């Protein structure tokens, strides 16, 4: 038997991380060689950066310093274009959770009905098949036109993109509850409502949770793009704003945090999924 070495994988991760940071560091070191540059580009990014004495690409140290700055004061608010990164993340998370919750409120009951009735399943299937592959951002102009509120439009886009995975998974989970379990409920004369809540729901819960996990993942992907479009607040807007300010260090900080929050959301739902999973 091989001795188990639980520290091996984290050690490798640390080495990979160090390698990555090292290469990054070397690649962004200021070089002395004068390089011919396009004057317009030089004007845009600053003379020093353009000629290569100082790259516009920050070094790992600079990004680290920026991150530290953000961590020390994440929630400040100095007007529309200058809010702490924590505030911006909170806006985004709020929109995602709101849009996602609304979608769950619609998708789970509707998925239940679709899963229980083959007729309704057949009747609604063409609509679902057409609506499902539409990029949620394609709804944005329509949402802005009808709702006339950028904030609600962003939430609507999250709602739409969270809807389909939950709907399809719930319907699938409900339709595939083991015949035997339903027969148990029937022979025990358990009412339809109790069967729905005490047999079908727990039986389909793992599948439903999988749908929720996919939905939250997509919603978190989409919110960044949606906020870039509607502007105002949120981490997507923050990224776009920093692009305009040409603060690459800020952009990289935001990218890192987007990844971390996404991972947290996924872990949270994985926990919930584990709580409703049953072993057969």
């Amino acid at each position: 038997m091989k001795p188990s070495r639980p520290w091996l994988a984290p050690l490798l991760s640390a080495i990979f991380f160090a390698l990555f940071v090292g290469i990054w560091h070397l690649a962004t070191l200021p070089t002395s060689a004068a390089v011919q540059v396009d004057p317009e580009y030089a004007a845009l990014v600053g003379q020093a950066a353009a000629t290569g004495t100082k790259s516009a690409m920050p070094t790992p140290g600079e990004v680290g310093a920026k991150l530290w700055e953000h961590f020390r004061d994440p929630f400040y608010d100095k007007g529309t274009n200058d809010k702490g990164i924590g505030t911006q993340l909170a806006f985004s998370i709020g929109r995602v959770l709101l849009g996602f919750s609304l979608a769950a409120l619609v998708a789970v009951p509707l998925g239940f009905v679709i899963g229980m009735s083959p007729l309704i399943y057949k009747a609604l299937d063409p609509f679902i098949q057409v609506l499902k592959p539409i990029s949620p951002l394609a709804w944005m102009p329509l949402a802005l036109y009808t709702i006339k509120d950028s904030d609600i439009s962003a939430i609507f886009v999250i709602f739409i993109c969270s809807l389909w995975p939950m709907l399809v998974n719930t319907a699938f989970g409900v339709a595939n509850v083991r015949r035997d379990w339903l027969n148990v409920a029937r022979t025990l004369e358990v009412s339809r409502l109790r069967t729905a809540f005490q047999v079908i729901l727990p039986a389909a819960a793992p599948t439903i949770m999988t749908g929720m996990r996919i939905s939250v993942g997509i919603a978190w992907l989409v919110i960044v793009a949606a906020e870039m479009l509607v502007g105002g607040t949120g981490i997507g807007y923050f990224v776009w704003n920093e692009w305009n300010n040409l603060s690459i260090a800020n952009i990289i900080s935001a990218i890192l945090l987007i990844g971390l929050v996404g991972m947290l959301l996924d872990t949270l739902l994985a926990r919930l999924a584990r709580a409703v999973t049953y072993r057969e």
Partner: protein
Amino acid sequence: MTPSFLKVEGLARRFPGPAGTPGVTVFEDIHFGIEKGEFVCIIGHSGCGKTTILNVLAGLDEANDGLVIMDGREVRGPSLDRGVVFQGHALLPWLSALGNVAFGVRSRWPAWSAKQVEEHSTRYLEMVGLGPALHKKQAELSGGMKQRVGIARAFAIQPKMLLLDEPFGALDALTRGTIQDELLAIVQATHQTVFMITHDVDEAILLADKVLLMSNGPGARIAEIVEITMRRERTRNSIHHDPQYYRIRNHLVDFLVNRSKGYADDKMPDHDPRQPPVVRPGLEGGAETLPLPARTAPVAASIHPLKNLSA
């Protein structure tokens, strides 16, 4: 003669074939009765339609012809009056053993308090020796324990009749023996009426008062009814000492091996599916065939291959 507690008359089940092809008649012209407190086993080859008959008795499936009457009322749909132990135990895996039993108990006595439900459920789980495993979930239970929970769940609702579909088929011989003994003890104590499917001849002889022999499908019939003529107080250990045992056993095995074919389509003119011959192997000189006292009026046209059942 008083009518049987459970009466099956002219039962037939047909499944439609794939589009365009004629369907199959799994069984037809099934007649039998079960008295109160009687333990009846049915044996027959795999696929002859035993599970289908049990599902019709349970009310989970509908027959195409015929009817089932229990305690004077026609069976239409499932009922708490008939407890079912499923072939694959069918426990709800997210509930504990206690939760599974309580699920049925709560449905049977909706007015009971949580404490009453728990006490009642616990009592039945203890009866099948699961006192120490009340809070275990399915994944933590062995095959035998799962089947015991299934049995406790069915007994706990105190049904008028118990239906068991090969309950011990998936168990090892040792466990099967133990649970057979437990079941025997409980049934003898409670005088429960039982209908049980098995493919195990010894199990049928040990447990049953009479054994229905089902011919091969399609078009399966009840070929014979074998009375188990040994003392009711038999046990698994003593049963082999009774010379009757081997006579009955040989008769059943002989049926399964040699005689289970050819009952379909009224190919056996002497066989009246409405009154399957009652057999007491080993008594009164060999495997003698005694006609059952008439339950339904004998059909005049019974020699006719095509009987009009609806007439």
